[in-house]
Structure formats: structure tokens, C-alpha cells
């Protein structure tokens, strides 16, 4: 019977023989940012032993920062080579370029905001930055991969790096606990995702998103595909913290180092959303509508309601991030094109404001993250007007007050929902943002309308200041001139929805002026 097996195998073998040639050089261009990041990551590792741990925070940071910026540049380079690389593994299109830029930018800002933090918290710099860079590689791949297995691996890369980063404040029991919880639940969820991948493979015979979508569009969808979607949704839902898979979020955010929270609440989340978009829209996952509808409603409501009584700023922001995930999911219930563009814009805006907010929190928290309760923020408007002002700005953006990115993000999601006749969700969203206003407002009130409590506020160091400034500017930019970004998002969304065939439409950053 082995003969039989051989006979069956033969044609595929032959096929492989004639296709077995090294990948063309352009393929490497299509993963250039990942390459750059990895190189710099390794550079950090190599330099690590050469410099002594004590006063080398800055130098590591600088290397990492340069790496991130180089990767940004590389992304622009990559954008010139739209198309598929490595035998249907990754696709470079507007969509992936967008998320590359986003994720790498987040990493850059986080690195910048970590300079001072590491020194204050006495954290080993080399591994920290190395992990951030490598983790970014994973996120980038998640956004461009069109092969579920590759997605799975990339997901693991980003996850594992964040697991570790979460546990970086080694002296605090809370930190290691956070990392443990994150790790165990994370791998738990990943297993679900993987099982989903397996079943999808079983249902469609492939793990390539394009093939899957073709199969699923070809009619009579097997039940197995539904189950597979369910399991994948569980896995991804965990990553994007949608109810009831959000449970890890508050604990982890509270325990993890503030800048890392800034990273993991935006970077991996954005990447996960990218994957979700690919799975839901590009792979045209079956029976998704009510699933998303309900979980969106639950997510935003629970996030907002729970946040009302939080007293720890990090934890409060954790719940707020859950709520925002809910808003984002609303976009997923909308028509693919509208939804995709809205979601893309939202991730960007949310990243800008949230990273900034956590940068502020991280700076204010001071050594050992002593000051993270609302009481500590009493009268911050007096003691440190600038810090309070920027924080207020971010909070306003989170509330969704005009001229902040948060507002337009919400606006687009809302309009996408209404255009897709999702009146119910729209109303729920509106109600929720009204409720949400309350607890953000609480912070503002505490900062401006009450007397200081004598918490020492160290002057904002240059790097952190720069990071915060960048966030402010980006939030403001997205709030005042969102047109360009949105145009780009729409443009790439359109082609993203249309590209079921391997042939990718041409994208170039000239479309993003």
C-alpha cells in the first residue's frame, strides 16, 4: 500500500520539482521592514554584552529607535512592490502597508517613551528593546500574511514578546502575575485559534486565505467552516479583548509596565484586528454578522460600565480599551468596504491617543509605579499644567470630542454603521460613548477641579516629552485633517475587499499623498 501512497504523491512531487527555485529578490523587498527590524533586534542583542548594563539604556534605546525609523522608511520602500511574495505567504497591498506603518510607528513611539521609564524602573534595556523590535516583526507579518499558519506563527511572535514584556517589572509580584495570566490565557486562546485553523484546513483543504475565500464563496459552505470560524473568532476575540474573552485585559494592563501597556493595547491589537479583518472580510467567514453584532454590543457596554468605578488609572484605561474594542467591532458588522476603512482609521486614531495616554501615565507613575490611583492625580492641573493638559487632550480624544482623532474615528464607525442600516448598534454606540464620557471626565475633574495631594511630579524628560508631543500631534492631525488618512484607508479597503484573486492591485504611497 505504500506503493499506492507514492503513486498518489507523485504528481505533487513533480509539481514541486519544477517549481523549486529560489524566491525572486522582489520577494525580499516585500518583507523588507520585517528584515530591518529583525536585523536591528539582533544588533541590540549583539551590542548587549559589549556595553555594561548600568548606563547603556539610552544607547540601546537609540539603536532600537533608529531600527524602528529605518523600518518605517523600509515600509515606504516596500510599498513600491505590491503583490504576493514567497509563494502566497504574504501580500503587500495598501492594507498591509497601512498596518505596517501603524505598528512600526507605535513601536517607535513606545521605544521613545521608554527611555526614561527603564532607567527609573531599573529594567534591563537590551532585552526590552530587542523584544519590542522582534514583537513588531510579528505584528507586521500578521498584517501582511495571507497564510493562516504564517499568521499563527506571527501571532505567537507578537504574543510571546508581549508576555515577556508584561513581566518586566520583575520586582513587583503584580508584574509577574500579569505576565503569567497573560501567558496562560494567551496560549489557551491561541490553541483555540489553532484548532480553528486546523478545522478550516479540514473544511477547505487549504490555509491560504485567498483559496479559502474562493472555496467559501463558491457556495455550499460546510458546517465545519462555521465551527472553524467560531474557534478562530474565540482566539482573535481574545487578542482584541472582546467580551467575554476580554477577562485578561484589566489584570494584565494593571500589572504590566505602563509603556508596554501602551504598546500591547495598540500594536498587537491593531495587528489582531488586521487579522480579524482578513479572516472576516477577505476570507469571507460565514455566519459572522450576529456574532459580531452581539459581541460588539456586549463589549462596549461592559467596558464602559465596569470602568465607571475603577480607581486605578491603568485599570480604568484597560476597561476603556475594552470599550473601544467594542466600538471597533461595530465596524466589523458593517458592509466590508465601509467597515474596513472605518476600522483602519479607528485603530490608527486609537493608537495615537492611547500610546500617548499611557506615556503620560507611565511618566507620572514614577519609580515602582507608585502613583497610579486617581487620588494621586488630584490637582495635577496645578502641579504640572502641561502634563495635565496633554493628558486631558488624550482623554478628550478618548471621549470623542471634536478636533481629536478619537472623534472622527467614532464618527466614521458610526456613519459606516448607519450606512449599513445598523441603527440598533449605532444607538448602543451613542449611549455608550455618553456613559464613557463620565469616567474620563472624572479624571479631568480630579486633575483640574480639586486641590493637589502633594504627589511629586518629576519634570518631563526630553524623550518622553517628544513621544507625548508626537502622540498629541498625530491625534490632532487625525482630528483636524483626517481626510488624507481616511482616503488612503478607503482606497486600500476597496482593493482589499476586491482582491480575492492572488493578483494584487497596485498600491503606491502616492495614493496616500
Amino acid at each position: 500500500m505504500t506503493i499506492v501512497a507514492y503513486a498518489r504523491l507523485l504528481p505533487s512531487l513533480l509539481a514541486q520539482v519544477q517549481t523549486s527555485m529560489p524566491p525572486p529578490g522582489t520577494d525580499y523587498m516585500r518583507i523588507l521592514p520585517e528584515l530591518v527590524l529583525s536585523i536591528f533586534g539582533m544588533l541590540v542583542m549583539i551590542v548587549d554584552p559589549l556595553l555594561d548594563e548600568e548606563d547603556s539604556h539610552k544607547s540601546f534605546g537609540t539603536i532600537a529607535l533608529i531600527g524602528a525609523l529605518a523600518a518605517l522608511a523600509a515600509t515606504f520602500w516596500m510599498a513600491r512592490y505590491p503583490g504576493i511574495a514567497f509563494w502566497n505567504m504574504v501580500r503587500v497591498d495598501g492594507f498591509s502597508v497601512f498596518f505596517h506603518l501603524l505598528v512600526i510607528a507605535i513601536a517607535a513611539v513606545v521605544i521613545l517613551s521608554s527611555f526614561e521609564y527603564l532607567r527609573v524602573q531599573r529594567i534591563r534595556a537590551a532585552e526590552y528593546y530587542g523584544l519590542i523590535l522582534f514583537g513588531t516583526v510579528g505584528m507586521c507579518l500578521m498584517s501582511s500574511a495571507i497564510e493562516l499558519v504564517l499568521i499563527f506563527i506571527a501571532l505567537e511572535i507578537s504574543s510571546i514578546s508581549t508576555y515577556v514584556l508584561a513581566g518586566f517589572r520583575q520586582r513587583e509580584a503584580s508584574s509577574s502575575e500579569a505576565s503569567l495570566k497573560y501567558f496562560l490565557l494567551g496560549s489557551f486562546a491561541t490553541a483555540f485559534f489553532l484548532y480553528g485553523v486546523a478545522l478550516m484546513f479540514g473544511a477547505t483543504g487549504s490555509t491560504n486565505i485567498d483559496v479559502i475565500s474562493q472555496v467559501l464563496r463558491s457556495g455550499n459552505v460546510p458546517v465545519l467552516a462555521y465551527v472553524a470560524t467560531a474557534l478562530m473568532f474565540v482566539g482573535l476575540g481574545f487578542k482584541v479583548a472582546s467580551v467575554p474573552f476580554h477577562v485578561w485585559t484589566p489584570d494584565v494592563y494593571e500589572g504590566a509596565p505602563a509603556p508596554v501597556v501602551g504598546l500591547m493595547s495598540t500594536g498587537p491589537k491593531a495587528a489582531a484586528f488586521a487579522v480579524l479583518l482578513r479572516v472576516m472580510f477577505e476570507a469571507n467567514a460565514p455566519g459572522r454578522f450576529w456574532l459580531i453584532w452581539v459581541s460588539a454590543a456586549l463589549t462596549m457596554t461592559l467596558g464602559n460600565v465596569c470602568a465607571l468605578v475603577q480607581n486605578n488609572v491603568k485599570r480604568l484605561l484597560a476597561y476603556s480599551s475594552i470599550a473601544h474594542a467594542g466600538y471597533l467591532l461595530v465596524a466589523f458588522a458593517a458592509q466590508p468596504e465601509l467597515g474596513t476603512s472605518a476600522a483602519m482609521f479607528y485603530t490608527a486614531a486609537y493608537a495615537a491617543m492611547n500610546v500617548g495616554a499611557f506615556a503620560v501615565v507611565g511618566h507620572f507613575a514614577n519609580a515602582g509605579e507608585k502613583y497610579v490611583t486617581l487620588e494621586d492625580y488630584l490637582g495635577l492641573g496645578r502641579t504640572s499644567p502641561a502634563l495635565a493638559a496633554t493628558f486631558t487632550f488624550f482623554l478628550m480624544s478618548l471621549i470623542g470630542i471634536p478636533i481629536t482623532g478619537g472623534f472622527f474615528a467614532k464618527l466614521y464607525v458610526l456613519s459606516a454603521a448607519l450606512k449599513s442600516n445598523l441603527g440598533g448598534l449605532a444607538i448602543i454606540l451613542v449611549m455608550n460613548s455618553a456613559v464613557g464620557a463620565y469616567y474620563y471626565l472624572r479624571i479631568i475633574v480630579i486633575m483640574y477641579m480639586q486641590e493637589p495631594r502633594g504627589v511629586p511630579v518629576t519634570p518631563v524628560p526630553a524623550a518622553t516629552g517628544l513621544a507625548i508631543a508626537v502622540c498629541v500631534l498625530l491625534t490632532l492631525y487625525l482630528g483636524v485633517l483626517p481626510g488624507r488618512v481616511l482616503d488612503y484607508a478607503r482606497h486600500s479597503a476597496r482593493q482589499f475587499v476586491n482582491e480575492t484573486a492572488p493578483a494584487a492591485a497596485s498600491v503606491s504611497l502616492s495614493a496616500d499623498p
Partner: protein
Amino acid sequence: MSAMIVASPNMDVLGPIILSLVTFIPAVGGLLILLIPRRDRDIKLFALVISVLAFVASLHLPVHLHRDLNSFKFEIDKVWITTPNIHYHVGIDGISVWLVVLTTFLTPLCVLISWNSIHARVKEFFILLLLLETALIGVFTSLDLFLFYFFYEATLIPMALLVGMYGHGRKVYAAVKFFLFTMIGSMFMLAAIVWLYAKTGSFDFVVIQNAIRTGSVPGFEQASLWLFLGFFIAFAVKVPIFPLHTWLPDAHVEAPTAGSVLLAGVLLKMGTYGLLRFNVGLFPEQAHRNAPWIIVLALIGIIYGALVSLVQPNMKKLIAYSSVSHLGFVVLGIFSFTAAGLNGAVFVMLAHGVATGGLFMLAGILYERRHTYEITEFGGLATPMPKYAAFFLVTVLASLGLPLLNGFIGEFLVLSGAFQARPVYGILAATGVIWSACYLLWMYQRVFFGQVKYEVNNTLPDLSLREKAALWPIAVAALVMGVAPLVWLSAIDPAVQAALSPFTQLASKAVGQ
């Protein structure tokens, strides 16, 4: 005087830019204050100069305003954001022009009145004040729904901060209450706006209005009621219409004088203006259909507000409730859909702005001297401070609608309009004439007449030059508006006629049924 008003527009060189000029002078000034070193006197002077400048500039508007029928004047229409196509589209008609002037008229007085009452964080105070002014003007000038919403929200933060930072007593509670009430209300408006955008693809007021009138909005019939309510709730909170008014007394009592003046003088008018411009302008059908219960609420507001204010022990609370009563007249006038009613409504807005603004200024002056608003703390004040008593009397008379003062014109027109719509409306509302006399004169008597009860009050100084400078304009305006209302009405009337045009056939239809 009216000759001056209808001056020919060809001498109007500033025409194209004047509106933006008026709108943004204060904001720019406010930002410039940031640069001034913290020498309070300079800051105050600068703020005064800026606000006066804005006032002078704004006078250009009525002088060069055509008096012909609708169509907006001084229009500017520049693309702000391409997708969604949001325009910086501003323009004024006979209604909004006066509200703009009212705003610019009151702000310098606010600056004067807060000269000594603000001690801490003077810089921030005046920055907030000027920013608030810009936002207010923007609300009245913007013709792009989005722009409108933007300014509408933008008024929120400075006001809340003014109350929360510079208020007294339960200022935080008041500020948060104010913020949340308005925020929640405006959320519904946002949803409605976005719906309109989703269906018409434009935020432009004029475009949408035409689209609705030509019936080229898909699914408008089903949605119109909800849209109407969406806008209505937002504005009803702002006006405030019973029973959404409870934020007002709190906010007023705790707010600093300038805050109260602008709050009563202008912010409330945002609500009535919105009702007139959007609820009536965009949804005449619904407005006509829902008028009865809205009018009932207005009547309740008139009588209820008056009765409650009759028994207030706190001067400011009393004035606040009287505002509820007065604004009831405005709503009544608007929804009577008669020329007289609408003219009156607009005129009451202005008159109330001047008179009640004046009352709050006077109350503030007293607070500066005695640090209380409790009426029982005073008595016999006419002896130590006769000038003050005189100004107070004039303002009170203006507010209770004595002929030849500004209060009367508006009330009379509104009442006659309401009476034409339905006699019972007019009759019930007219009782307000009695009530206003009751609560105002009783308050006046308790504060100023009789023997001086407490020794402290004997030593109170009479008005200072600065205070007189702040009060004279109020008194003069009250008189001029009462004697020569045509100056205002001649501009208001055409706009009102235009607003009424859709109702003539509606009314005929109603009669037909």
C-alpha cells in the same frame, strides 16, 4: 439708526473675511495670552482689548447685512475635510447675526466683571473665556452641520472648566452635571447628523435642507421623527426645557459671574437657536406634528420656572429659574409658527441675554462684597449703595417686561403669536407676566428695601467705576432695544418669514384636515 443699518453693501470691503475674523479674533487672542508672562493686570487688559476688538468687528455684520429674504450673508465655503466632505461653511442671517453680536457684546463685560473676582489661575481663566467666545460665535455662524456640532461641543469644555475651576460650593458636581447633561444630549444629535450625512453624503446645512425639501433623501419619512427627536433632545437639554432643566440652577449657582453671564446670556440661546435653525429648519413636518406637546412643555417651563424661582432663597438660583421661565417663552414662540411668535422668540433670546446677563453681573458684584447669594443676608441695601440699587432696578424692570425696555417687546410678540396659534397658549403664558413681577419685585424688595438688617451691609461700597463701565452698556442696551426694536426686528423679520415659509402650506393642510 435703521438708516445706518441698511447701509449699502457695496462699501463692504471686509465682507468675505469678516465672519472668520470675528469668530477667531478671540481664540487667537486667547492663545496669545499664553505668551504673556503671568502678570495678571496685563493679561486682563489684553483680554479686554481683544474682546472689545471682537465686538467692534462684529458690529460690521449688522451694518452691512442685506435685509432681503433668506439666503445667508457673508458666506464662506471652503473644503475642510474631503472625506467625509466637511466644509468650513459659515454664514449668517438676520437671526444669527444678532446672537453673534450679543456674544461679542457680553464678553467684554464679562472680562470687566471678573477683574477682581478671579484671583488664582487668572491666565487660564481669560484663555478659557476667549476660547469660549470663539466657540459660541462659531455655533451661530456655522452652516455645516459638522462644523456646528464641533463648535457646539467646543463650548462644553471651557464652560465646564470655568464652572469647575473657578466656581464655588459644589462646583465639581455642577460642572460634571452640566457636562454630562449636554454631552449625552448632543450625542443623539450627532447620531442624527451622521444619519443625514450617511444618506445625503453631505454635512452642508443648505444642501441637506434642499435635499429634504425635494424629498430626495432615502428613508427619510421613517427616520424623520427620530432625527427630529435626536436634535430636539440635544437642544432641549441646552435650553433647558422642563424637565431637563435641573442642571441649570446648579451650574449657575456655582459658576463664577462671567460664567453665569455667558451661560445664561448665550449658551442657553444655542439651544433655542438650534431648535429654530435645525428642528424647524430641517424637519418642518415633524416640528409641526410635535408642536403641541413641546408647547405644553414650554408652558410648564414658563409657569413652573416662575413659581419655583419665586421661593428661592438664593439670588442666583432665583435668576436661574427665571431663565427657565423666560426660555419657555422662546420655545413657545418658536413652536407657535407665527411671524409674531418667531420674531418675539428671537427677540426674547436677545433681551434675555442682556437682562439676565445683567442680573447675574449684579449678583456677582454683590457676591464680591459679601461672598453670599442668600437673599436673607441682605435687606435695605438701597441705603448704602443707591447706584447699585438703581441699576438693579432697571435690569429687573427690563427682565419683567416693562414697556420701553427690551423684555417687553419679545414677550409681547411671543404672547400674541402664541395667542394667534391657540388662545389658551397665549393666556396661560401670559400669566408669566404676573409671576415675573412677583418673584423679581419680591426679591428686589427683600434685598434693597427696609432697614439695613446686618451691620456689614452698611459698610458695603457702592459701584466702582469699572463696575459702572460694565453695567452702563447693559442698561443702555435694555433701553434702546425697548425703544427702537425695529433696528433688530427689521433684520430678524425677513429671516423669520423665510423660516416660516414651509409652514404656511402645512398650516393650510392642518386646517384642511
